[in-house]
């Protein structure tokens, strides 16, 4: 079961069918890149490594996030409004945890 995560998802309130809509998503995460070295206590990498977005059940966006991305990563992408449905955002974290948030896109 995927847990919730603090995130801000910004979509247009409504969209016309066929319209290109921009989707903005900001998620709260430290994106710990990890480190090791002589005299240091090693700290494992702990980042969100994948963001996957489905729209009405179909994958519309997938991104591999690297340890070079700053904390609280912000992503913007576009998709075509086809039908009223949920955009499901799924982040996969190092260690196997999965976080999920949803937002509804209303198509007129």
């Amino acid at each position, binding site marked *: 079961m995927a847990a919730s995560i*603090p995130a*801000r998802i910004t979509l247009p309130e409504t969209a016309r069918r066929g319209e290109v809509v921009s989707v*903005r998503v*900001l998620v709260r995460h430290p994106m710990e890149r990890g480190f090791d070295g002589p005299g240091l206590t090693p700290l494992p990498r702990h980042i969100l490594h994948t963001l996957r977005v489905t729209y009405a059940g179909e994958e519309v966006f997938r991104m591999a996030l690297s340890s070079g991305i*700053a*904390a*609280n990563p*912000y992503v913007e992408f576009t998709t075509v409004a086809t039908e009223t449905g949920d955009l499901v955002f799924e982040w996969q974290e190092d260690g196997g945890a999965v976080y999920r948030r949803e937002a509804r896109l209303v198509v007129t």
Partner: protein
Amino acid sequence: MIRAAAGFALLACATLAGAAEIRPSRDYLSPELRAQQDDPSRHPGWLWVEEGEALWRRGARSCASCHGDIAGMRGVSARYPTVAADGALLNLEGRIERCRTEHQGEAAFGYESEPLLSLTAAIAQRSRGLPVSVATDGPAAAFLEEGRRLFGMRQGQLNLSCGQCHDDNAGRRLRGDVISNGLPTGYPAYRLEWNTLGSLHRRLRACSLGVRAEQFPLGSPEYLALELLLAARANGQPVEAPGLRR
């Protein structure tokens, strides 16, 4: 004639930190950062604002149970720091902690803790765009004087006063950033250097470290007095909190 000129020069010195010299911190931001500060959909500080608004309503004796909706906090942060009835100088963080221990019967959050930062951000955000209007007379006058002394005092191994950067060299570059007038209007602010939201006092500690001076503790009387002086310098300028800073 000479006396009049000398008098004018004195007056000019006294008002050196006056309105004409001081510009809002947003004017010193890069256009990209300024646009991001204005756009809640791209501003990570809003993650804290949302968390703070949830905290406002949480618990049996929540903030909302006395104060009502957080929308009623409009304009409040613009009046802080202020002197409480018992004579203590309180900034917004101090006021929230007092409310928590005296009225809610809970343990204090602790300065720079996540819940305190979140609540401060949520409350300060309600004053966004409103002009700062802190009281500088009456019981605040003595604190303001102490703040002015700290602001003008040369400190640290670099032997610099606040004004030597923030008055004399505002607008010029220091390392990768542009020196501002040092207004507190954007705090708590999300600093890219911190990768998180932080308080004004955390920023002041960074300033102290920068001139290799003694760092005062978060919430210390020294930083509170300095915060009052900075807010007084910002009187009339719009609140930018939560700000976005390099």
